[in-house]
């Protein structure tokens, strides 16, 4: 009769996403050295990320030198839309991937002339969960919620609410037409994150865009000064 195989438990202290985090740190160091302010924009499919970026690029025209990375599962449509407003747009097709990873950002940045950039806008794959846990080397995370998605989305996505450096409430022009209880949404956000700035925006009417663009420009100014 065989004796049961003995085994040994080997303790290891390491983060599971260590490899991604190291790549992200390399990207971050390079962007900071160049004085580029990078934001990772995270929101659900249909929350209006691409339309918001179109409006943002329009507002930044002649004021800043942006580059855009767009993550998408399969199509190039978002990239094509944004190329009308910005001459440095790189589409990252993630295939089955539900989020961007630092290696994809590093590879995409190799296609950008970074000497002509002071602001990097990264539109993550439409998803409120997966992208939050993957550091891309950004300076700030931007969470996008839309009033059409329902007022429970903050409570259902605590990681994004807690990790975000700014939260945008998009499609604010539609607020009178949808059952979105703003006080519920705000109370949930504040329980999870007492200090994150919350900005109302509408890419359609332009409402609130100046506040959002000013937030971006403050970040770009401080990145250049550092």
């Amino acid at each position, binding site marked *: 009769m065989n004796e049961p*195989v*003995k*085994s*040994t*438990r*080997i*303790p*290891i*202290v*390491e*983060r*599971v*996403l*260590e*490899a*991604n985090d190291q790549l992200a740190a390399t990207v971050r160091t390079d962007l900071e050295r160049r004085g580029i302010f990078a934001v990772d924009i995270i929101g659900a499919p249909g929350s209006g990320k691409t339309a918001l970026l179109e409006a943002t690029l329009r507002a930044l025209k002649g004021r800043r030198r942006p580059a855009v990375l767009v993550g998408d599962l399969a199509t190039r449509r978002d990239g094509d839309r944004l190329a009308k407003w910005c001459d440095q747009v790189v589409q990252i097709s993630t295939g089955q*991937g*539900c*989020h961007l*990873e630092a290696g994809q950002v590093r590879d995409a940045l190799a296609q950008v002339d970074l000497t002509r950039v002071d602001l990097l806008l990264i539109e993550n794959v439409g998803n409120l*969960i*997966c992208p939050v*846990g*993957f550091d891309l080397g950004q300076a700030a995370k931007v969470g996008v919620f839309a009033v059409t998605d329902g007022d429970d989305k903050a*409570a259902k996505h*605590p*990681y994004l609410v*807690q*990790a975000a450096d700014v939260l945008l409430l998009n499609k604010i022009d539609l607020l009178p037409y949808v059952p979105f209880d703003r006080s519920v949404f705000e*109370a*949930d956000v504040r*329980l*999870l994150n007492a200090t994150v700035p919350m900005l109302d925006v509408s890419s359609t009417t332009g409402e609130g865009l100046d506040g959002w663009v000013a937030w971006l420009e403050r970040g770009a100014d401080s990145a250049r000064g550092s």
Partner: protein
Amino acid sequence: MHEFSIAEALATQILRHAPAGRRVREVEITVGALRGLEPEAMKMCWEAVTHDTSLAGSVLVMDMRPWTLTCPACGRAWESPVPFAECTCGEASPRPTAGDELDLVSMTVDDDDDAAAAEAETR
């Protein structure tokens, strides 16, 4: 499904750490509540990414860390699987906090001979 990417990253990590020729029996990770990982989905993904590798058949053990809720009214603090829950004092909005740790803690490997076992025990 971020579970799949995480399982892939974990498998790569374990293959790097595993001593040559020793079968990996168990892998242990700690998961903060903020990560929103589904244990069942994670197990399924672990099986999927390891089935054609030397890690096939290894068991993934997940220590799922709970939320901590703190009541602003009575000051009570307790652990909860969900971020939003009423306090026993009636307060409707205790403050939820949780970690986003996602850490590899240990792996358990079969001993190939007594010498290897003795060596591992003295570490």
